[in-house]
């Protein structure tokens, strides 16, 4: 187990290095630079700025300086937000995205799993139809429709919740629902399918035969295997929630990573874009490793490889 984790961690180093080099050159290859604007800079001012950010050096040297900085934990200064370092920006934005993402994911599991299990237990009866219908709705309605709909009802209709921003619990509710809905729907479908597959297996029958309460059979035996597909899905779901929250962040004015990621690319904020890409990659890679470990813990038949 420990060897597996170590091996995977070591494997991430060349992967991250490749991502770093690729994104460095892709950013520089994109036409237009950080200082191109409606208002041209005085050539002298431009030269001063380029010197300040090290753009007057050759590309290999810039890359080398970036890597050297990175090894000291320094992600460089932001090109656009000149008073801030990339590290400071990311450390303000990451907790926001993580909180939103985790709450959305929890919400998705708390609603999705029961919905799916109920559907399976009442297979082809009305609770199943309702659950399946709900999850179909969740999958079909994109977040840029669901978000405004929720705003219309809860903000402008019922005056229950504030719109957007960040700073209080009430501001978290609508974006978390919007972000979590699709995942809840997927989870419900996976949980339903998984449960249906497992309920008739021998070990479940054995559990019943030895006189366990139905509740215990379900919680300790059936679900353990039935939820494997859900666990598998959690990796990509977390990833997509973290990376794909841009739209939701926009609709609800949330100062998360997505906003910075998109703006950094558009502004040619080289350092901030690189920093965000590296952070996202690190998150995704670690999540994948985590999912593999979880998989093994839930179903030891799965080899760690």
């Amino acid at each position: 187990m420990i060897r597996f984790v170590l091996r995977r961690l070591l494997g991430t180093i060349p992967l991250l290095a490749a991502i770093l080099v690729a994104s460095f050159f892709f950013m520089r290859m994109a036409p237009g630079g950080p200082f191109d604007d409606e208002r041209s800079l005085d050539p002298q001012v431009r030269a001063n700025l380029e010197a300040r950010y090290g753009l007057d050096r050759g590309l290999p040297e810039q890359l080398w300086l970036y890597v050297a900085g990175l090894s000291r934990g320094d992600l460089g200064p932001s090109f656009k937000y000149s008073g801030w370092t990339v590290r400071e920006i990311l450390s303000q934005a990451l907790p926001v995205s993580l909180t939103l993402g985790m709450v959305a994911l929890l919400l998705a599991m708390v609603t999705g799993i029961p919905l799916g299990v109920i559907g399976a237990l009442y297979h082809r009866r009305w609770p199943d139809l309702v659950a399946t219908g709900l999850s179909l709705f969740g999958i079909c309605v994109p977040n840029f429709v669901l978000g405004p709909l929720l705003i219309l009802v809860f903000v402008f209709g019922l005056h229950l919740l504030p719109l957007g921003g960040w700073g209080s619990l009430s501001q978290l509710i609508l974006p978390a629902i919007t972000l979590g809905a699709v995942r809840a729907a997927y989870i419900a479908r996976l949980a339903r399918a998984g449960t249906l597959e497992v309920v008739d297996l021998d070990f479940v029958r054995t559990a019943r035969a030895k006189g366990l309460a139905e509740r215990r059979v379900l919680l300790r035996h059936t679900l353990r295997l039935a939820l494997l597909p859900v666990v598998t899905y959690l990796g990509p779901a977390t990833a997509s929630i973290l990376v794909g929250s841009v739209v939701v962040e926009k609709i609800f004015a949330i100062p998360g990573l997505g906003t910075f990621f998109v703006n950094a690319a558009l502004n040619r904020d080289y350092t901030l874009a690189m920093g965000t890409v590296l952070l996202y990659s690190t998150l995704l890679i670690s999540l994948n490793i985590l999912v593999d470990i979880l998989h093994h813990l839930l179903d030891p038949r799965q080899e760690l490889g």
Partner: protein
Amino acid sequence: MPSSLHRPWFSDPPSMRGSVRLRWMVLAVLLLAGCGFDEEPADFRFLNPEPETIDPGRVSGQAGGRIASALFEGLCVRRHPDLQAIPAVAETIETTPDGRVWTFHLRDTVWSDGRPLSSEDFRFAWTRLLAPKTAARYANLLFAVKGARAFNRGEFTDPSRLGLRCPDPRTFVVELEHPVPYFLDLCAFYSLLPVPKHVVEAHPDLWIRPEFIVSNGPFVLDQWLLHRRIRMRRNPRYWNADAVTLEIVDAIAGDHANTNFNRYASGGLDWVDSDGVPAALVDRLSRRPDWHTAPYLSTYFYRFNLRRPPFDDRRVRQAFYFAVDAQSICTNVLRGGQLVAHSLVPPGLPGYQEVHLEGYDPDRARRLLAEAGYPDGEGLPKIELLFNTSESHRQIAEVLQQQWREILGARVELRNMEWKVFQATVQRGDYQIARGGWIGDYLDPSTFLDIWESGSGNNRTGFRSSVYDSLLQEAATTVDPAERMRQLHQLESIVTVQECIILPIYTYVVTNLYDASKWEGLEPTLLNTLHLGQLRRRSMEGER
């Protein structure tokens, strides 16, 4: 063999209940980490995109300028709403008859940490703006100061050789190379605000952070949350603090018009500008009492590329100009009260009579095109019209495409590019006709006319004229204001009527949404500025 499968069911640890509790605790901690508790409400909340910086020496846009102007106060301030520069930190101002030497006598004022503000702080701030190391984008605003250009170029490093002197802590003397008639207006511009020397020297990069910053204006910086909120509090040590009525002011970030408008409509913002007005709602919102517009010192135009046929021929440029019905664009496409541009310099500048272009004239357009050798568009190469990606730019481009086809028989293709690519392409001169826009920085026509100097980075049309350049130089050194304005008028007429290097479409309007029964001092201004120190709430009648 993994043990967990064979562990007897009864040996399961009784952890169900515990793990549920643990999960809730994790959730609670997460929530607390990410969100604070609701805080003190602000007296006034306005929409302001996340500024690049709030350091006066480095600010280069409106978002940062608004914050800097609320935190710091310069030698002069612009009076709301006519924007006339009036003495502020300077109590009295003297100038020599040739307009080259300005002497500012400062008030007895202090920074927000109690340290006296001295003329040395101004000299420090202006020297810093000019120093190559600062890489200030607006360094050129001070290029009229003696020695400034050479100092900025790094030709000498001794700041005492600049035309900035401090004979005593309350006197600041500025020596210019040539008179600048709008110099006092510049003194109210955010780039020329004073900065606290003692703090900047102690924390060169971090001094603008709430934990370090010290300011001398109506407000002090309380909190800066990126892409979220900048909170400012009234500065009790501001010399005119009695006139400031707001205790807490929040600048709320947001870059999506629909979201910004929703926040305004649901009571989360007291004021938004056009960034909070979704294009689709203009028709409905413009009939509401909280809709306020005013002319903006900004022009929307198209550039012709004079380096490429067919637009190297003035007659072709004029033909394309006369074939455009800008009125129909304003009334049918924009619909937000924008005015047809009859000039490059927007109307409203004190003492200046702008050019009046005649505008739409299809017959004349056809005649000019025929004279240039393309009767009914015959032989005219395919034209590519370039704009940066945006729905409203596309709509305007489509109208132009149609009008040019119908009137001139021209085949026009539309091409759009993402912002940065667009800017780099136009800068390179790789276009035929390209969208452009210009916002004036200060209240003088030269802010629109300097850009067409040969080789200026903002010119981008390939227009080169020694006549234009020498007249521009002449206007820069003319002392008599009326004569200077005549020269500027002549310059404007060269780039529009005579040479037609650009095609003005409309003058932007400042669009603000706010409740006028509640706020006094919010009337939109020519520069879309906010004067938070002069803003007050009307009597409690209009209370929420």
